[in-house]
């Protein structure tokens, strides 16, 4: 099972683990950013590299090359409010790696706290990882289309409000990704998230499917937000709205209002 004990880890804990050499840290920023500086002992896996081919076979290869075996604790970070890190973390989890967490701040915040950075590139010796795919955390378009009619299923669209109003999957509700963060952490506190979700009448026993615009980053962050608020049954519709539209699946919109014209963009 993929019940994560700790969807996020804070800077103090991570620094302890760096000292103990007991963790594999993945920096998912672009290679040139990583080369400039990064959290000590972290390895680089730009999200684009993963997205180029995120088939289990390829992901397995990537994980093994990064020196991750079944037991290696993994921490992922980015500088994009946690969304890119979430997508990488979720992918490892889907492969069957259970011990993966997100750093609870962005790299900029890490730096602004004055914590140590480094520019040494780490080369890791390849390890062997097994494959135990976790289909219960992934939703496909066909699965979602059927499941959304089920009363116990809640579909959450994590795009911005205007995009949601303009078009969304029928019966989806909207929690924009910006709602999930606090001022200085990629996710709000557990209590704040629970209150927000309870206000929206999202029950812990519901099956929840998250999606966003195209590649499952924003909704990946939502996946971890729900996990951190103790929602056990969450799936990521990883191909998200881009695929849904491409497949000509049904779409609904908020009718009879010119909401776009209220925006100053």
């Amino acid at each position, binding site marked *: 099972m993929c019940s994560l004990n700790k969807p996020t880890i804070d800077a103090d804990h991570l620094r302890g683990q760096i000292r103990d050499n007991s963790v594999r840290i993945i920096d998912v920023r672009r290679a040139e950013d990583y080369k400039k500086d990064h959290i000590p002992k972290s390895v680089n896996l730009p999200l684009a590299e993963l997205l180029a081919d995120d088939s289990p076979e390829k992901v397995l290869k990537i994980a093994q090359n990064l020196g991750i075996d079944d037991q290696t604790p993994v921490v992922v970070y980015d500088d994009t409010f946690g969304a890119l890190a979430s997508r990488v973390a979720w992918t490892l989890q889907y492969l069957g790696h259970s011990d993966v967490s997100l750093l609870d701040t962005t790299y900029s915040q890490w730096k602004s706290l004055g914590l140590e950075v480094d520019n040494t590139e780490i080369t890791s010796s390849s390890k062997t990882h097994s494959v135990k795919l976790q289909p219960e955390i992934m939703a496909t378009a066909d699965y979602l289309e059927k499941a959304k009619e089920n009363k116990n299923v809640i579909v959450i669209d994590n795009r*911005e*409000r*205007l995009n949601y*109003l303009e078009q969304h999957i029928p019966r989806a509700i*909207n929690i*924009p990704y*910006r*709602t999930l963060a606090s*001022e200085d952490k990629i996710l709000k506190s557990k209590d704040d998230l629970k*209150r*927000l979700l309870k*206000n*929206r*009448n999202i029950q812990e026993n519901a099956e929840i499917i998250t999606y966003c615009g195209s590649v499952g980053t924003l909704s990946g962050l939502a996946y971890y937000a729900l996990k951190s608020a103790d929602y056990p049954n969450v799936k990521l519709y990883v191909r998200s709205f881009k695929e849904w539209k491409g497949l000509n699946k049904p779409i609904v919109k*908020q*009718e*009879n*209002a*010119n*909401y*776009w*014209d*209220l*925006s*100053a*963009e």
Partner: protein
Amino acid sequence: MSTITKQSKEGRKPKVNWARIEEADNFANTVKQFRQGKLEHDSFRRFRLQHGAYGTRMTDDYAMVRVKLPAGEVYPHQLERLATLSEQYSIGSAHVSTRQNMQLHWVILEDVSEIMRSLAEVGLTSREACGNAIRNVMCSPLAGVCHAEEFDVTPYAIATAKFFLRNPLNQSLPRKFKFNFTCCEKHGMARMVDVGLIPQIKTINGQECRGFKVFLGGGLGNKSFVGHQLEDWTPEEDLLYTSIATIRIFDRLGDRKHMERNRMRYLVNEMGWEQFKNLILKERTLVHMTQSAVVKLAVDQIPQKLESHVRISGFDGKSIPDGFSRWRKGNTFAQKQSGYYSVSITLEAGDITASQLRAIADISREFSAEGYARTGFVQDIYLRYVSESDLARLYSRLLEVGLANPGSLTMVHPIGCSGTTSCNLALTNSHRLAKEIQRKFIELKLDEDDDLREASIKISGCPNSCGQHEIATLGFFGGGSRVGKDMYPVYQMSLGGRSDGDTMLGVNLMRLPAKRVIPATLKLIEVFKANKKQEDFKDWIHKVVTGHADSTVKSIDDIKKILLPFTEAPPIEKDKDFYADYGSDSSYHTRTGKGECAA
């Protein structure tokens, strides 16, 4: 560029905390009860409005949260919080209203309590921003800096807002109730509101005493009235007693049955001013006598702390960006404090993005010696106490964030209510029309035309005047018209409205198709240019509507004749666009829901 040596990073903190955090929990619980069917729709709606959450066009799922900014004052960290809230719970933009509020639209009803909680952390509230209560207490954004004012009314506005917020007197009025403090005759709208106040000093026995000209019973709406002056001069000690007396009379005699005509102005109109005035004066005496203790407004008279920013080096004159003098002419105002300027930041129909809000927060820390911003009366934002030597640098900063549109204080900056972008009552997209006019007129450089400076354009999406069309030189309100079965959006145009010392409501001219409003307006300007003598556009229109014009074109009927060709509707096959409203590519049809002003 220079470096600032003296600037607190945090920024100035507000003097008043308007919030009560427990109201957030209460709101969340009440929403739950409502969704569970334990609370009637009507009682819930009253509760929701009392807490500042307004309904949204064609849906029960969304609300608009109206954040009150008493006297328009908003501090840097509050602007930053509003920015974040707009991204988290709204559309990534906020909206500055004509009553100095900031609104977050398209908020999911279940999220409203989260916004309230977050606002409370920065001392802001939406309490009594809607519903049958005393709405945001307005104050001229130039109060304290205006040359013509007799004294700064800001502390009185803040004290009035403090006294009435959550006051039991104010929890169940027959209808909404509005205060407006202004600096002088020119810069306010004291006669177009339930209680309007203009500061006035009177010398009594050689001593200068502060007081007010108090106007009662004015207001804009489906039927508008100009307010009446209560007495020659109302001493400052009587400000609170007069306010209480007026609210008590309205509470007692206001019509609770006919929501569509129960603002206080209708009461004044039905009763007659003389009788109403006597009632108020008697009631005021009664209030004086029956107060168990002397009630006084807590007017904070501590002088404003100014923190001028010392710069190491000046602005390099060569790098002043293009358009600076044009912007300076149309957007700045020399204060009575020498060397200081007030700057009006033009928005488009009041809309502002989250990143622009953050920029204004930074800019007010850096450029305003008073360290905060004020919302204005025309969907704009003021920065005051800007050193003259900083204006060019400020312009270049505003330019970077897309906030340097020229002509803020001129006719090219129209008001548009939210219209069909979010309002249940709207018939047309008045919001977008205001933006279209602004873009077109800036392109034509009409802001540089001194003849057009004092005039105004105001647009409402229905007859209800939220866009204040009746006090505009050129006013428009939306409706629908048809050719056979094909509908198209139209605007009723009115001329000559104003809210200054010569306040009058605009005179109806004609109905114009929405897509002809801009060309017809340009034509009218052309006619004015051909007919004008010494007067500017506003004065010429005033002469025309009051029958005092001596030009060739001299009456409403003359203008009507000239603009008549613009009313022609082409066949739909020839001009499909004519039949669609701004912001829409499909055929126009009117669709409205229930309004909530009267809830």
